[in-house]
């Protein structure tokens, strides 16, 4: 394993511990929750008496978040071990190829959700020149989609710590 290493700096030991892995998964759930509630906050605030303008959150504002969550679900449902074409036992039946296609769809949905968040912000809030307390709703849309992306990155990284952990326990 040490001979196949590509990078000069090796991963620190605590990164491979069970504790770091579990903390990563908890943090991913927390980040996703933060994304959802940031968006929910903009929707609730839009109907509250503090919103003086006639700009309101509609289904259009939720659409990018739905797409990024879908992408996150797809990305993290794929079994990571099937990705490496080096494992000749799986390359025969084309599982690695299928996994790459599904992962591509997932990343496309995630990136599309982020781009959609920026699009909603620009078209609905920035270009019509919404005044600042209302502008907050558009900013929260972008922040929510960025948080979903961050959450899926954290979940991905902490799931990739898994193999060595399972190896240590199996010994």
């Amino acid at each position, binding site marked *: 394993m040490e001979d196949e290493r590509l990078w000069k700096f090796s991963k620190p030991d605590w990164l491979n511990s069970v504790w770091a892995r*579990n903390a990563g998964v908890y943090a991913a759930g927390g980040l996703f929750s933060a994304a959802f509630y940031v968006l929910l906050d903009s929707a609730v605030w839009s109907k509250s008496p503090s919103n003086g303008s006639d700009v309101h959150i509609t289904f259009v504002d939720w659409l990018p978040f739905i797409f990024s969550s879908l992408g996150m679900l797809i990305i993290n449902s794929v079994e990571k071990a099937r990705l490496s074409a080096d494992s000749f036992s799986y390359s025969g039946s084309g599982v690695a190829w299928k996994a790459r296609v599904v992962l591509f769809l997932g990343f496309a949905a995630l990136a599309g959700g982020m781009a959609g968040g920026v699009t909603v912000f620009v078209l609905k809030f920035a270009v019509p020149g919404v005044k600042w307390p209302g502008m907050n709703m558009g900013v929260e849309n972008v922040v929510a989609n960025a948080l979903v992306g961050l959450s899926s990155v954290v979940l991905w990284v902490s799931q990739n710590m898994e193999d060595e952990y399972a190896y240590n326990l199996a010994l």
Partner: protein
Amino acid sequence: MPQAGLKTIIALSFVLAVGFLLVILSCALWKAYYPLLVVATYVLAPVPNWICSHCANPDDFVESSGAAVLDLGRFCTGFLVVMGLALPVILAHSQIIEVPAMIMSVIGGLLIYGTIISFAMFFQEEQEF
């Protein structure tokens, strides 16, 4: 060591009572009963972990689906914990509850959740030995 365990249980129940007091005060002082949702959230927070740890088969290392189910439970627990923090903030931002009520319900919710977590930790330690 039953003595230490008894003291721990008394201290934990005291903290739990203080937490409930803070949450109920934050509701009753302003006659807006939405912060009670925080209690439900924190009581529900360990449930996904508990269910998934019973579903998974930790001895099975060939197929790593057991670890995936455990991860799903942890993800849902993390979601619920942050939800307990986020709900009062949202309610206060939209002026449904007052800002002091938000602070009281957040602190009360954290106390309740801390009690649940430390209770689970103590029970696990007793089972191991």
